[in-house]
């Protein structure tokens, strides 16, 4: 008996329509993982750096020896400008400069300065792995110098022995020079945007999307769709009305979610650095662009949802149709969270750009770095995507599909436009 029920349930649930999205997502995630790369492997890789020794003293020799042993040194000279250019060209992580009097200062019981010029490629969580390894190298340099100090003389200040060097650093990121911050610090500050914004956008898309797909499912289940379609109102107005109505519901739900989530994230925030102090503040115009990007992405998502919603037979089947939207949003979240748009391979870059939800996720970070072309290009693409989806939805609303599940073919772009006007 129970076997018979299990068999029936399995047959009812294990259908091609539920299987295909899972398979597609599994393939996409596999591809994403492979392309982003293995974190462990990258941690073990020697970081690519340049070194400039202007001191040529006992302690700078120790520093150079440690760095040469533990890093891949692509520039070892005396010209900081030249070194920086070389590191940039070779895709290196940082240029470390040991200035004159480094050793002399330490002998005089003062911390020796190490100048670090970071070349930051991206602000994703995965982009800061190499700089993390360099941070480790600095620790190794400190240890080497501390050992030497202990071996030489016991009259050194214990505080100096424990911390014989101090850092003076600047980070070069997307054409900007940010003084006083390491790439890790900058990455940490930007990571709050990397996590909070993508997740909030994802929740907004999923919640509003679920509303519009469910609305389609309920129209069918409650048998209200036929009546709606015979009322003297344009199909395009029905589609747009559903999208805007759901967008409002989704935004309210996302706002409630955001309040809770932002408080949750605040509890993890350890940095009290103000981005505005480093020229990374956003203007009103930037916030307006972020708003437009978010709104167009929401409309694009909902327009896609309404197309998917036309496949819903009832409320229950509508719930499963939200899955492709969730999957697309999750792909955008993971990629934008872990990698910067500029540091991902071309295939993933196309994928991320093609998913409309990615654009508001990337917008804030892009605007901080004055990358207006990415944001405005994203808005334009998302707007075009929305219009195409609405036209497709209206075309489906004009066809037999909504009521019968099949389409009476009309053919031709002209018919498509005609359908939109009806």
């Amino acid at each position, binding site marked *: 008996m129970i076997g018979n029920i299990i068999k029936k349930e399995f047959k009812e649930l294990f259908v091609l329509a539920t299987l295909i999205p899972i398979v597609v997502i599994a393939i996409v995630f596999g591809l994403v993982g492979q392309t982003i790369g293995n974190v462990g492997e990258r941690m073990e890789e020697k970081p690519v750096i340049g070194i400039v020794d202007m001191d040529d003293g006992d302690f700078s020799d120790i520093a150079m020896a440690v760095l040469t042993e533990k890093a891949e040194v692509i520039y070892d000279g005396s010209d900081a400008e030249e070194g920086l250019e070389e590191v940039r060209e070779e895709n290196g992580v940082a240029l470390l400069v040991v200035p004159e009097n480094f050793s002399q200062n330490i002998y005089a019981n003062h911390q020796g300065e190490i100048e670090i010029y970071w070349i930051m490629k991206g602000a994703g969580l995965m982009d800061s792995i190499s700089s993390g390894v360099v941070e480790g190298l600095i620790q190794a340099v400190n240890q080497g110098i501390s050992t030497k100090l202990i071996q030489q003389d016991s009259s050194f200040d214990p505080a100096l022995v424990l911390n014989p060097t101090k850092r003076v650093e600047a980070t070069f990121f997307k054409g900007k020079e940010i003084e006083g911050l390491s790439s890790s610090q900058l990455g940490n500050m930007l990571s709050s945007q990397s996590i909070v914004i993508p997740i909030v956008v994802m929740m907004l898309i999923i919640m509003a999307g679920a509303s519009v797909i469910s609305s389609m499912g309920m129209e069918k289940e*409650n*048998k*209200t769709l*036929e*009546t709606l*379609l*015979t*009322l*003297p*109102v*344009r199909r395009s107005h029905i589609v747009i009305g559903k999208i805007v109505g759901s967008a409002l519901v989704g935004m309210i739900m996302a706002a409630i979610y955001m309040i809770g989530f932002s408080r949750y994230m605040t509890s993890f925030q350890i940095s009290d650095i103000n981005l505005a102090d480093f020229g990374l503040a956003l203007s009103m115009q930037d916030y307006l662009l972020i708003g437009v990007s978010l709104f167009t992405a929401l409309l694009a998502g909902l327009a896609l949802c309404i197309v998917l919603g036309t496949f819903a037979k009832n409320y229950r089947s509508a719930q499963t149709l939200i899955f492709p939207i969730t999957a697309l949003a999750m792909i955008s979240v993971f990629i934008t969270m872990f990698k910067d748009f500029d540091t991902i391979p071309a295939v993933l870059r196309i994928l991320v750009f093609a998913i409309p939800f990615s654009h508001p996720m990337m917008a804030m970070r892009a605007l901080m770095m004055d990358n207006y072309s990415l944001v405005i290009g994203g808005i334009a693409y998302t707007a075009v995507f929305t219009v195409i989806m609405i036209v497709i939805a209206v075309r489906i609303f004009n*066809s*037999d599909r909504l*009521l*019968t599940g*099949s389409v*009476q073919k*009309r053919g031709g772009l002209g018919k498509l436009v005609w359908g939109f006007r*009806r």
Partner: protein
Amino acid sequence: MKAVEVRELVKDYGNFRAINGISFEVKEGEVFGLIGPNGAGKTTALRVIATLLQITSGSVAVFGYELPKEAGEVRKIISYLPEEAGAYKNLTGKDYLNFIAKFFGDREKFQNMVQRGLEIANLGERINDKVDTYSKGMTRRLLVGRALMVNPRLAILDEPTSGLDVLNAQEVRRIINSSVEAGVAVLLSSHNMLEVELLCHRIALINDGKIVASGTAEELKKEYDAGNIEEAFVKAIK
């Protein structure tokens, strides 16, 4: 002017031909009934005329407006009541009537329509309750009210008394008759032969997507030498 003019209408669902070249006319102020068994093509025909389905071939005109070219104009003058229609469950009955009426007219017309809808539905205080709490009969009366309150020139009613008890069915028939007296043309489908005889001025018997006979109830009974429409229908499809 003819309320409905259907010529050689064919409707295919993929390889299945649901309607196979039917032709009929509905006059102004007339109740015309499509009668046939399940799957005969009644609902498909009504859905095509209600602008819900595309035409495979043939032509359909409603008060001179050709489908599908002038579907927007047709929707302004028709009202369609599907067999298994529902209303939005989170709205009250009155809110539902308000929602529909807003599509049809200005402020003054809107008020009159809603008032007429309230009278037809005749749900008393329950009109202010959510549709979710209504019985099947109450929902159907609300929907009949919705369909007829907008003063359509053509009401397309698919099994208007489907699932209703005798008293509710009789009330719905009374409402339809009073609308016809006010000048509305009605095209309806039904399994209920008694209802058809009571309501319809003319009838078309439909089977396997084809109209097998048409005329007044008296003409059909006479033609097939039958005591009632049911008997005439059985003889017609043999």
